[in-house]
């Protein structure tokens, strides 16, 4: 067993420097690596490229990194909840690549799986297809999308063990497993860190081979964007 445990978030992100390419897990604010983002905010770095489905909200998640002008480029599928993002984008301060959510998920998956490109129907005939190779298979048009890889992947899981094996909960899984595989260095924070051997191997979602650093997170806020209840 290889022990991947590190002390805390600050140690986890200590070698992330200017112009790094990061993948950040989560869908909306669900399943985002809160502790790693907080640790990044303490660092004086900029020029980051962030690959993440969303860009947080103005005062939480990646939104805070945008506010601090740490991010040069975002690669996302939906950024509708963040006014600062929209302002920086429309004013040209922030470079943005918007891509269909399924293509984003598959590009990240392909990066981790060693597949440099693939064909998908999403975006054919739209501006997403501009500059991309389009081919016909079985009478239907598909466009070529390339893999995405990152210097660091910041992911969050529910439980993890010292060998880096991860288990997610609910819809907080989302992009986290693929991003774990697509990062050169993957930093996993977990709500509950246990000794290797304590988790049932049948239940592991992300095998520890993809995780280089793991630590016990703390003080999870798990902010809810749209609280909806039934009476």
């Amino acid at each position, binding site marked *: 067993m290889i022990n991947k445990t590190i002390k805390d978030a600050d140690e986890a992100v200590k070698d992330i420097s200017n112009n790094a390419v990061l993948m950040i897990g989560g*869908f*909306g*604010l*669900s*399943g985002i690596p809160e502790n790693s983002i907080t640790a990044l905010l303490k660092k004086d770095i900029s020029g980051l490229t962030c690959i993440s*489905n969303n860009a947080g909200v103005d005062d939480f998640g990646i939104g805070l990194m945008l506010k601090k002008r740490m991010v040069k480029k975002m690669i*996302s*599928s*939906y*950024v*509708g*909840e963040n006014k600062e993002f*929209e302002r920086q*984008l*429309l004013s040209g301060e922030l470079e*943005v690549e*918007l*891509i*269909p*959510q*399924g*293509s*984003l*998920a*598959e590009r*990240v*998956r392909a990066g981790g799986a060693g597949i440099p490109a693939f064909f*998908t*129907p*999403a*975006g*054919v*005939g*739209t*501006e*997403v297809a501009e500059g991309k190779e389009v081919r016909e298979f079985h009478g239907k048009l598909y466009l070529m999308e390339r893999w995405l890889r990152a210097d660091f992947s910041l992911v969050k899981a*529910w439980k993890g063990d010292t060998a880096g094996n991860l288990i*997610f*909960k*609910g*819809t*907080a*899984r*989302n*992009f*986290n*497993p*693929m991003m774990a595989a697509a990062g050169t260095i993957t930093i996993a924070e977990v709500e509950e860190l246990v000794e290797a051997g304590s988790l049932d191997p049948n239940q592991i*979602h992300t095998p520890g081979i993809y995780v280089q650093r793991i630590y016990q997170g703390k003080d999870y806020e*798990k*902010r*809810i*964007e*749209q*609280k*909806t*209840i*039934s009476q």
Partner: protein
Amino acid sequence: MLDKNQIAKRIAKEVKNGQYINLGIGIPTLVANYIPNDLEVVLQSENGLLGIGPFPKEDDIDPDLINAGKQTITMTKGSALFSSAESFAMIRGGHVHLTILGAMEVSENGDIANWKIPGKMVKGMGGAMDLVASAENIIVAMQHCSKDGKSKLLKTCSLPITGIKCVKKVVTDLAVLKILPEGGFKLLERAPGISVEEIRSKTEGRLVVEGEVPEMDIQ
């Protein structure tokens, strides 16, 4: 003229037993409230869930359980959770039978625009481009006209499009329309009290009217 809930109610009548369905944000989400209890269907949430249940009671709220609109939800019996890659594999692979989504514009050949207003609104396409490129049946829920009275059913979309030749049916506050394979909006039903003439005047694309057009049943 139908309100949002009545549009949702009308669309719910398109749902068939045994379908796996993806509901978009806005009016489409409301459709879930009107699916008859005797139908067994499974709602897919592209952030990684098959089996969306009702909104939770206050005490049951779980921040790790949301739908694609970031609303707190519950799971039905027999639910399954998965990653975003798996989620879009089932969408792209054609396993989701019905997709219901909102739009800013629909053209008479079935193109849809719903993700961008250049220079004004840049929210992103989310999962819409993947959904419209792959679902076998796509129904659009929207208002017939924009707030400033312009028709949203057009000859060609003026906004950047989300997908080409993919919409099968449109349900608006005024009408139910089918997109014909050769192009054109075939008027199937009128909202109660709305005349064919009014629908014609508010439809910029080619409107096809054959015989008597019945009023919708939204009971």
